[in-house]
């Protein structure tokens, strides 16, 4: 074990959360070591290629592809390796999965922060499903809003404001929480399909608006704009138009000497001192093992790995895993499953090849508690979005059930209709449940012999009903736009997902949560956990901007404590 010179903060994982945090810490003058399991990717690896990216996730080859969690639906079963993870895996590298994400960039609805209280007030105590461990966040939208503003300004988020300081703004999301000002950049370009769906939404009495994105619609801060090349989701950006930490301060922080990045560095253990405060990490890089002492540790990998590293860092003071003496690590696990409704518009060329999936009209009528749920049989919801970036293999895999799945009739259908398919995707909110948890699989191990994460996870009635409701709204939208036939992708839960939540819940009570309202572990001072693993609720939108806003907030607090 090689013991390295101590630093102020060691950051584990340099993705959307850790890359941003490491940059801010270094900008504040602290000495920072950033440990990233993946490499530094370059644009030469970003060839537009659906097999390499969607089917095989080559950008995840450094680590994540070899540690896919096992899954089971209830505690009595033996877990099996997750199957069919096409398009559901994160990647590894500096900037993390923000490299290959579509980078849709939402704020959560204010309701998502107070769901438990709001549901009880509006619908009564019995509206919260039994078995659910639903909780309010320990902070409200208003406390996080300035940090959303900071992230949007730093990265040049593209979008159309709908609510500035409480004043409605035409053309934006009428249901969004108040923001401090307009988006720095206008929305991504409309497409013929997004316009068609926008008009159809208006015809239904809904209020469509452009999907916000962490992709520059115009040059910003010396960085380039989107070229709408058609290989955005699951691929890196060859135009450098996605807002990733490297392009927004991380490279400068390295040049300043304040941030030292080690790639190919896999953290194996987080260390606590005799006072049970975080004091560094152990990691492996190549054939060598290292110890990096530090005054504070920022754990910013991903939901599954945040949980796994804590559980793997057991010690005499923490026999069940670091920060887990109260037994909360791994609990309250939730994911988005990305159900979609597709529609065919015979004889119409929708021109959906190309572009980015973030070029989408969206509606928020059915997100959060924006409609009355009294008679719906579920709580929560999601936005609906109408993306571009239709791809060839995807099209062929998901033909409608009314068509044979192969053979000449299938081929004929594809020939006639492949350019006439539209779809709507949605991110059904899920509740946390007592039964849905992450832990270490007692049998399955990854390529390095480390236990894999095991997901015990299923949908309950709330999620089944909500998903069905949202897919029906999506079908209604496509039909209103002229679709002759609509169909759904299989709509079950996805325990392995790029939108995974919980496991290190944020809360005020150390008996029921892992980290406090600043992201610091209740039981381990100096250990700050970043990422959606801290979210008490999932929300019905993409999580990254909230992850980033929380990262800024937690990091500023850490800076003030270490100063």
């Amino acid at each position, binding site marked *: 074990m090689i013991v390295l010179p101590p630093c102020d903060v060691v950051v584990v994982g340099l993705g959307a959360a850790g890359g941003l945090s490491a940059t801010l810490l270094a900008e504040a003058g602290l000495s920072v070591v950033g440990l990233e399991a993946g490499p530094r990717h370059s644009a030469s690896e970003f060839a*537009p290629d659906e097999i*390499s990216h969607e089917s095989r996730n080559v950008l995840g080859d450094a680590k994540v592809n070899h540690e896919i969690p096992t899954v089971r639906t209830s505690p009595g079963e033996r877990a099996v390796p997750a199957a069919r993870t096409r398009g559901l895996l994160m990647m590894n590298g500096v900037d993390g999965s923000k490299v290959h994400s579509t980078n849709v960039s939402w704020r959560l609805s204010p309701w998502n922060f107070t769901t438990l209280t709001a549901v009880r007030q509006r619908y009564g105590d019995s509206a919260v499903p039994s078995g659910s461990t639903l909780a309010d966040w320990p902070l409200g939208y208003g406390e996080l809003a300035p940090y959303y503003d900071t992230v949007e300004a730093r990265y040049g988020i593209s979008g159309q404001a709908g609510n500035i300081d409480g004043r409605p703004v035409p053309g934006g999301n009428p249901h969004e929480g108040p923001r401090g000002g307009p988006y720095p950049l206008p929305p991504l370009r409309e497409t013929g399909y997004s316009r068609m769906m926008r008009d159809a939404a208006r015809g239904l009495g809904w209020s469509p608006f452009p999907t916000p994105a962490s992709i520059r619609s115009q040059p910003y801060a010396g960085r380039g704009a989107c*070229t709408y*090349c058609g290989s955005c989701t699951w691929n890196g950006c060859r135009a450098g138009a996605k807002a990733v930490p490297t392009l927004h301060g991380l490279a400068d922080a390295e040049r300043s000497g304040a941030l030292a990045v080690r790639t190919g560095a896999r953290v194996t253990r987080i260390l606590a001192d005799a006072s049970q405060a975080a004091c560094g990490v152990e990691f492996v890089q190549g054939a060598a093992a290292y110890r990096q002492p530090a005054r504070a540790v920022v754990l910013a990998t991903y939901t599954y790995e945040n949980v796994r590293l804590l559980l793997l860092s057991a010690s005499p003071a923490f026999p069940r895993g670091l920060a887990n003496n109260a037994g909360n690590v791994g609990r309250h696990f939730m994911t988005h499953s990305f159900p979609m409704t597709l529609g065919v518009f015979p004889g119409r060329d929708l021109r959906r090849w*190309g572009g980015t999936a973030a070029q989408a009209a969206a509606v928020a009528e059915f997100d959060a508690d924006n409609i009355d749920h009294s008679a719906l049989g579920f709580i929560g919801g999601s936005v609906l979005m109408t993306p571009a970036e239709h791809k060839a*293999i995807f099209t062929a895999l998901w033909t409608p059930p009314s068509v044979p799945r192969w*053979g000449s009739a299938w*081929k004929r259908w*594809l020939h006639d209709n492949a*350019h006439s398919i539209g779809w709507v995707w949605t991110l059904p909110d899920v509740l946390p449940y007592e039964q849905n948890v992450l832990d270490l699989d007692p049998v399955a191990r990854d390529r390095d012999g480390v236990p894999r994460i095991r997901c015990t996870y299923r949908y309950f009635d709330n999620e089944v009903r909500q998903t069905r409701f949202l897919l029906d709204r999506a079908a209604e939208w496509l039909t209103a736009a002229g679709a002759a036939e609509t169909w759904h992708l299989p709509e079950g839960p996805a325990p392995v997902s790029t939108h995974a939540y919980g496991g290190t819940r944020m809360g005020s009570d150390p008996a029921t949560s892992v980290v406090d309202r600043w992201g610091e572990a209740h039981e381990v001072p100096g250990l700050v956990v970043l990422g959606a693993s801290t979210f008490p609720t999932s929300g019905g939108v993409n999580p990254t901007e909230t992850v980033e806003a929380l990262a800024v907030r937690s990091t500023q607090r850490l800076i003030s404590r270490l100063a």
Partner: protein
Amino acid sequence: MSDPRPVLDPLARAALRAVVSRLIPADELGPGAAEAGADDYIVSALREELASYADGYRAGLAAIDEESLRDAGHRFAELDPSRQDELLEGWADSASLGEFVETIREHTIEGFLGDPVHGGNRDRIGWALIGYAPPGQPFTAEQQGTP
């Protein structure tokens, strides 16, 4: 280091080609998966990125031939196309072969519609069939339907 031994023996190789030929057949709309090299794509991928599927392919293709011999008196590749289609339809819904047929279907689609750099989609046959505009170059507003 590449193993010089074939990943599939000649009988399995013939069965695979016959299966992909029925999943995406050559017909009045033009060439199919075999003509696009989808089976070559699969064999080459089984040696590299899809190596974890190789045992499943060997077992699955052997089972296909066994069931063909039992039910139709010949190996799968020796049957006429309509008989092959009947057998495939039955297997697609079966507990024994359903998952394997779905795996071949998925990989055949990759070999028909994926980037030609992987060895399938020869002469961009698949993309031509569906009128696909492959990504990589900027798309203009007009190309996206908003002139």
